[in-house]
């Protein structure tokens, strides 16, 4: 199942000109836990998708409000600098949204 289809909200935005933050919100705790426990949802996988190093990616679970926050640096350019493609960072929830949550360890490259 695609992460995009599991989430009720999946949004990205700048947190300052050098950082992207992607919020994921879920309908219930089961789905939230399924995402958190999925072997395809971790800092290493996300870092690969966004061309950044895994040590710069943070995943915060915020269970009170059934949300997960992913924070990572902008790999391509800071907001509005030459080379940027998304000044507000509002469409950077992909490729994250394409992660297959049901994929097991065997499916990983």
């Amino acid at each position, binding site marked *: 199942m695609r992460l995009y289809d599991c989430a009720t909200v999946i949004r990205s935005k700048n947190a300052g000109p050098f950082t992207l933050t992607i*919020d994921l919100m879920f309908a219930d705790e089961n789905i939230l836990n399924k995402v958190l426990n999925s072997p395809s949802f971790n800092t290493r996988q996300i870092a690969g998708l966004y061309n950044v190093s895994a040590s710069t990616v943070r995943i915060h679970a915020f269970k009170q409000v059934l949300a997960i926050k992913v924070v990572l640096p902008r790999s391509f350019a800071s907001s*509005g600098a030459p080379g940027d*493609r998304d*000044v507000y960072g509002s469409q950077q929830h992909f490729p994250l949204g394409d992660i297959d949550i049901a994929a097991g360890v065997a499916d990983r490259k």
Partner: protein
Amino acid sequence: MREEIGFLSICGMLGYGYPLQSLQRGMSSNVAFLGADNGSTDPGPYYLGNGTGFVKSLQIKRDLEPALLAARKHNVPLIIGSAGGSGAKPHVDSFLSILLDIAKKHNLHFRLAIIYADIDKHTVLQAYSEKKITPCGPVHELTKERISKCNRIVGQMGTEPLIDALKNGADVIIAGRCCDTAIFAAFPIIQGFEPGLALHCAKIAECGALCAQPAGANDSLSAILRKDHFIVEPANPTRRCTPASVAAHSLYEQPNPECFFEPEGKIDMSESKFESYGERGVKVSGTRLITAAKTTIKLEGTELKGYRSIAIAGICDPIAIMNVSKIEREVTEVTGKNLRGIINTNDYSLRFLRYGIDGVTGYGKKSPDPLPREIGLIIEAIAPTQELADTVLSLSRSTMLHQSFPGRKTTAGNLAFPFSPSDFQGGPVYEFSIYHLMETEDHCRLFPIAFEEV
């Protein structure tokens, strides 16, 4: 000390509009002051770099006029932070001219405090040499050269300069670049309210009714601060706050939902409690301020990187779409050769944004399969002068129109231009080259206040 203090956040961004009824309703309860944020770095470095606002003057006038009239009618302070957008002198000055026009039109008289936020380059260089500057997030290390190349630097003031202005009897405060929280926390802090709660309340309030359901940054939010908690409630009766909507708001645009940092210190929300209050309000308690050992302010500085020209085109020919990367490579090469003697290839950049393939995500690991029926294309040139950018673009655009590729059937032209002229000047291009924290011992000295009797 007062038992409680009420205030109104006019909207999340002055100039983005709000219902006038919300202002009226919000002012009908006991309001000690009202305020609004007018700034952001979201629209990118151009606005700070170029000294222009991202909200048009007529939008500011529309939102400011009723707010100023309401503030004077109730004789309570009006506080605007990051005036004019990026909050540097040209922004503040253009905001002031709108304010003074409104005051003149309605024959309003008040004590005006103006707080500029421009930071002198020598101050930054001095702090740099004393190792008092650190990166704010995943930003490059600062160098002397980068500081020297900045064309404009502002600092985000905290509550202290605003507190000074209020203590000196300001009725209206127009502040340059300012922490969003300072706008709403300064007044309660003077009155002796818990700074952690005041700053958390301010953090929610600065977005207007964005924390409500339905969310609306373009609407007003009422807040009441008490000894050990605060209450937020949308002024508009069609919206309500819920514990989940307010708690979830802490996620928005923040790297960490459990805490945030201001010049005053770390605001710890890990123990915060969110409860329903009445029909549409939410009560928040348990937030604490962990005072910073040293006060730091955030610096924002921009550097001019060149001038931009762009052309917009579309392609529907399937073989041309299949070969678009190859076409781009050859256009880049031919353009470089043909520009010899005019500009060196290292001195300009040429970029192709392919909408429909990877214009947004750009990671380009694999193209969509099947390829789209049509793609949109932006050709972008950035060069040291506008004339050179225009030239690089013009040459690459005409080359691309006629560039040959394997199996080409569309031999009369590869590109559909929607407009004549096809090329547009984008003007100067800037980059945030300073986004760093600077330690300061005398916060107020950096942000001098000027008073004027209007």
